[in-house]
């Protein structure tokens, strides 16, 4: 009986161990690779089969298997290869401009377009207000209308 219990405990531990290990790295190697550049070939890491790219992929896999978090792995790669390894510019320092400028250009364009549209509509001033006919014109109109009736 005791042997059976021990055997079951060993089996349970053996089965649960890989599950526990798998739970330590909750991020996808491929996802991180898709966020990185091959620093030598200036293409996305996953589009490169260069020796350098293969080495970086191996490092990512090693860190993943060692239970490193995605953030820690990314930071390590940046420390080794520089921020140029990131496919998207970081959202701090001077590189923040790369994120802000497109939005600022769009916003500025929208404001400028609105201001121009208003300016044009004001300069056109719309149709001129009809002026009431003067006395002579009124009499002539009346006369012609009276003539039409006959």
């Amino acid at each position: 009986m005791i042997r059976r219990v021990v055997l079951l405990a060993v089996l349970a531990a053996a089965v649960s161990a890989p599950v526990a290990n798998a739970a330590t790295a909750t991020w996808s190697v491929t996802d991180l690779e898709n966020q990185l550049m091959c620093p030598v070939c200036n293409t996305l890491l996953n589009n490169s089969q260069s020796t350098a790219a293969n080495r970086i992929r191996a490092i990512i896999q090693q860190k993943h298997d060692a239970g490193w978090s995605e953030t820690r792995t990314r930071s390590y790669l940046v420390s080794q290869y520089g921020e140029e390894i990131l496919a998207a510019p970081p959202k701090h320092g001077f590189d923040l401009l790369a994120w802000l400028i497109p939005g600022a250009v769009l916003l500025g364009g929208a404001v400028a377009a609105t201001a121009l549209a208003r300016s044009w509509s004001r300069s056109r001033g719309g149709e001129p207000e009809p002026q009431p006919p003067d006395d002579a014109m009124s009499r002539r109109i009346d006369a012609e209308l009276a003539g039409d009736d006959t």
Partner: protein
Amino acid sequence: MLLLAAMIGLFAKSLLDNHTSVAAEIADGQHPAAPNFTLPDISGHGSTSLSSFRGKVVVLNFWASWCQPCQTEAPALQEIASKFGDRGVEVLGVDSQDATSDARAFAQRYHLRYPLVHASGTGIYQRWGLTAYPETFIINPKGQVVHHFAGPVTGQTVEQQIQPLLTNA
């Protein structure tokens, strides 16, 4: 106004980034002053500045551990360092676009005993005008870059370039 300032900033940065590289100046027949850098040693202890070798002939080698031709030339560079070390020649290896752990393993494998530093990022790569690994520059005792090898070197080709500098020193 903020947008305008940002645009000017980007323009200024692009101008700074695109200044002429050392390799391009050498190709034009010039002998530019070697741009200084201070980089951490691959051992993780301390750092080394290029300017600390002023007065010596410097064989500046850019390499990476994953680069096959770098493996071919590594023994020749160590031989140069051993043979000319007491005659005022310093070999300095700059490991770039590489992991320092891989660089350390490379240095052990090839028994490299000359100073080896690590550069992260592509700034130094662009400043020196590198296009592939390995590349080697010869710097005279005045701190001027006088020769550029694109591709692997041999002991003989390096010796040919440094011998006249030693005679003139």
